């Protein structure tokens, strides 16, 4: 009588699926694109800061249609958004790495999903705050009050996504526990 080998996934570990390899490449591309965008946002932020301090040539040449203060807040918001996106991408890269290795059901992945939902939630809260601040700035420049209503939009689908991620992270935690138990079944 033969007994089934315990670590059946070891045979497939060396051959990652096409989809996991594709995902890993996609995330790597997004990773570098986001870093480039972050650099652009930082440059805009610095230019806005310099213009806000009253350097006239920069103020008149670069900020004809938009006020430097508005640009400063917007670029800061974009920097925070890009930062959150980088945190999420880093976690996704590590999750993909475990997928390629052949065993994604590890407790670390549950923790990574937790970091992702926290990052999404924080980014969304910051977006709302930025919207309110920008509305205030626009009101100061005698723009229409309607813009306050526009920026106060609560994106329900984002909070739904956060909820889905919370559930997924808990499912992963339980899955990792079961996987550990299966590993220790002889």
């Amino acid at each position, binding site marked *: 009588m*033969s*007994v*089934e*080998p315990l*670590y059946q996934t070891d045979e497939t570990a060396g051959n990652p699926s096409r989809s996991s390899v594709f995902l890993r490449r996609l995330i790597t591309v997004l990773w570098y694109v986001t870093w480039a965008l972050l650099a652009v946002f930082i440059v805009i932020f610095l230019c806005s800061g310099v213009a806000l301090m009253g350097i006239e040539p920069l103020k008149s040449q670069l900020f004809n249609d938009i006020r430097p203060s508005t640009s400063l807040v917007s670029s800061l918001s974009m920097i925070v958004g890009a930062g959150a996106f980088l945190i999420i991408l880093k976690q996704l890269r590590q999750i993909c790495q475990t997928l390629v290795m052949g065993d994604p059901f590890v407790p670390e992945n549950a923790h990574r999903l937790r970091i992702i939902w926290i990052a999404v939630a924080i980014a969304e809260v910051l977006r709302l705050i930025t919207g309110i601040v920008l509305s205030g700035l626009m009101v100061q420049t005698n723009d229409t009050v309607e813009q306050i209503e526009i920026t106060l939009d609560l994106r329900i689908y984002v909070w739904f996504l956060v909820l889905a991620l919370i559930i997924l992270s808990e499912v992963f935690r339980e899955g990792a526990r079961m996987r550990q*138990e299966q590993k*220790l*079944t*002889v």
Partner: protein
Amino acid sequence: MAIRVNLDRVLVDRRMSLTELADRVGITLANLSILKTGKARAIRFSTLSALCRELNCQPADLLVYEPEENEEAEMKAAE
């Protein structure tokens, strides 16, 4: 865990090495070590059956139930 595995004692009695047993039973040495060191959470009937066949013993020779301290306290409290 309240279940203790007596594999090392049975192996000594049979004068058999862990490697030899692993070869005979058809499971990896790593898995057999998990079982021997008491780290295993569960054992398949197929594994137990193969071990008993190769060691010429009964399941009770390999597995011993030893209630843990808190388990005993719980039982006394229930009584």
